[in-house]
């Protein structure tokens, strides 16, 4: 596999799985959760590192995923106690991140972690970090990790689609119908944690946060059906990774950064020209109508 292709595939997988879950996040008004999780996992990584004593990625992944879930648990508990949503998110992730940094400096001799690398992983290195099974090179680790996360999310959401949908739309009604709202909530949170963790190790937190929100927000402007929104979001995510990679080659800039910028450009296009909700579209329609009424 060529290097470029590997990077594109990884980016597309990240975009697809994040875009998929991101739709539910923005519909549940929890878009900032990706950012929160990507900061809050730090203590999990440090503890996993201290306990396993290795820089092996599996324990770190588990530690990070555990902390991600814990973070969503804290946020949910605070919210259920009547704490305003933005405060609950902010207080939780800043506290967890701070604890992480304190842990790092407490065990600074044992921890030989490059924080920048953990939190701001670079997708450009993906092709070199390959996985071996029985001594055979089975391809880049990132693709396996993110691919697994994607398939998992796809399966779970597919199985519980109607539950995810009603819990996002009207949790009170869902509870009245006997649907375990909290369980579905944590299922979604667990998927987001796993996907975030699996992705940012290889592509960096910023790309994950971007892919969780930007493509799904774009899709939100383009359709009025949830199923379509999911599909468009995945599509826009994949396009962003392609387009972003191309941009990064042209400008010789960070790949993850360029993919984010590409997604941003798609969003702006949808914001302006979406056939349903675009700013320019609506303006044009209004102008046409005014013209029609002016000269009947």
């Amino acid at each position, binding site marked *: 596999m060529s290097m470029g292709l590997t990077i594109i595939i990884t980016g597309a997988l990240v975009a697809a799985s994040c875009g998929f879950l991101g739709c539910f996040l*923005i519909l549940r*008004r*929890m*878009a*900032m959760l*990706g*950012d929160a999780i990507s*900061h809050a996992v730090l203590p999990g990584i440090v503890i996993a590192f201290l306990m396993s004593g290795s820089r092996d990625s599996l324990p770190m992944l588990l530690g990070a995923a555990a902390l991600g879930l814990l973070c969503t648990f804290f946020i949910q508990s*605070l919210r259920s*106690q*009547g*704490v*305003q*949503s*933005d*405060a609950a*998110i*902010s*207080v939780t*992730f*800043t*506290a967890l*991140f*701070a*604890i992480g*940094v*304190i842990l790092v*400096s*407490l065990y*600074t001799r044992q921890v030989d972690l490059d924080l*920048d690398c953990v939190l701001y992983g670079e997708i450009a290195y993906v092709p070199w970090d390959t996985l071996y099974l029985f001594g055979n090179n089975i391809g880049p680790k990132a693709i396996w990790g993110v691919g697994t996360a994607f398939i998992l999310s796809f399966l779970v959401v597919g199985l519980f689609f109607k539950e995810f949908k009603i819990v996002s739309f009207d949790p009170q009604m869902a509870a009245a119908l006997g649907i375990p709202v909290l369980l579905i909530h944590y299922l979604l949170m667990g998927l987001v944690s796993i996907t975030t963790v699996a992705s940012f190790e290889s592509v960096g937190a*910023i*790309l994950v*946060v*971007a892919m*969780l*929100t*930007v493509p799904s*927000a774009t899709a*939100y*402007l383009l359709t009025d059906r949830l199923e379509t929104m999911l599909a468009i979001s995945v599509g826009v995510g994949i396009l962003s990774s392609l387009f972003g990679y191309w941009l990064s080659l042209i*400008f*010789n*800039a*960070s790949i*993850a*950064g*360029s*993919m*984010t*910028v590409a*997604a*941003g450009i798609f*969003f702006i296009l949808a*914001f302006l020209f979406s056939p349903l*909700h675009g*700013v320019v579209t609506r303006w044009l329609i209004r102008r046409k109508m005014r013209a029609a009424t002016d000269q009947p």
Partner: protein
Amino acid sequence: MNVLTQIQQFFSDPNTLWVLSGTILLGVSSGVIGSFAFLRKRGLMGDVLAHAALPGICLAFMLTGSKNPLFFLIGATVTGILASMAINTITRFSRIKEDTSLALVLSVFFGVGIVFLTQIQHTNYGNQSGLDKFLFGQSASLVGDDVWVMGGVAIALLLFSLLLFKEFKLLCFDPGFGRSLGFPVGLLDLILMLMLVLAVVIGLQAAGVVLMAALIITPAAAARYWTERLDIMLVLSAFLGGLSGALGTLFSATTANLPTGPLIVVAATMIFLISLVFSPRRGLLSKAIRLAATRKQMARERVLQFLYENREQGYFDPLNTEMILWKYPMSRRRLKSALASLTKDGWIQVEQKGGSFFIRGTGEGWVQAYETVLRTRMTEVWMMHENEIGGNIREEGSTTGEIPPDLFEPLWNLLVKHGREPKWNPKSDSIAGEGGNVP
């Protein structure tokens, strides 16, 4: 070396003193601005603006080629304002919700910043290593000049919040109404965001992204628990922010090489958690206690009412407790605790006969039962004649419906009119026998 001498030493070190005053100022100013952001449901703005500073810093560096913090400040402020304008535009002109547009702007601006950063690296602008320091913060390196800048900005911010207090209050509570009153809501919002940007940007180099995100919201969220008034909340939030700064700095200076920033966050979080649990009105503990107390009070009233009503109807024997449950369903545990506390007060006596329990009132108990029933029935007729009687039944805060003394007389007359007056008065009973109706 004991802690006291450590602290003494700490205060004699001018460098740490600078750091201390810096972190306190930071806490105070972001506490005040954060309160408005919190009430505007924009608490996460701190996080967003801190991220949005990156492209500004990079741009400033690319344009000037220098690492002068002033240029960084200007660059970060410009992109911060751009970011908040982008957020406003997106939420205003599309159906995208606030939280989504925050996350969107955060990631796209930061992505642009990263692109710039790699540009700088690749095109060899020379040493760019200082750039991320600006973003990730090092309060240990605060020097005199920085603190002066912080102090100046903090005081300016405080003054502005004081001047525009009423306007900001309206903006946070009901912007639509503000617009209808003729306030330039858009402009006010911009000023508030500008102030927020300033508070975040001056904090960044000392504190870093995450600390700024925390300092904006955590003290404000904590302060909200202690008061229902905005002015008090502002003062309190400023105080708690400053306190977090001081505690974090002191702790960091007295323990070996723990970083100041995260300790400040931890201190602020502690203060928040304490507020969440222990604050007197909205705290979890007081809510739980209040619920339990009201439940118990309710159960006690039911027992007394039951006793009295049976006696009123001429039933003099001790009453089987099962009958209470039949009339007023409650858990056995609650009934038991109510009976126990009434016995402890000496208001009732409980006897066991066979497998059942029987209760009877004591002298004091009958008086209390009479008072309870009188109060309940008076509230009842009060409600029926709210319009003619006046007064505020719904007033909240008093325990179960005290009757204002000046309403006693008219309410009694109404009770008599409806035939609802308690027919047996234990107080006059001992003198006048059955039927003494005068309260």
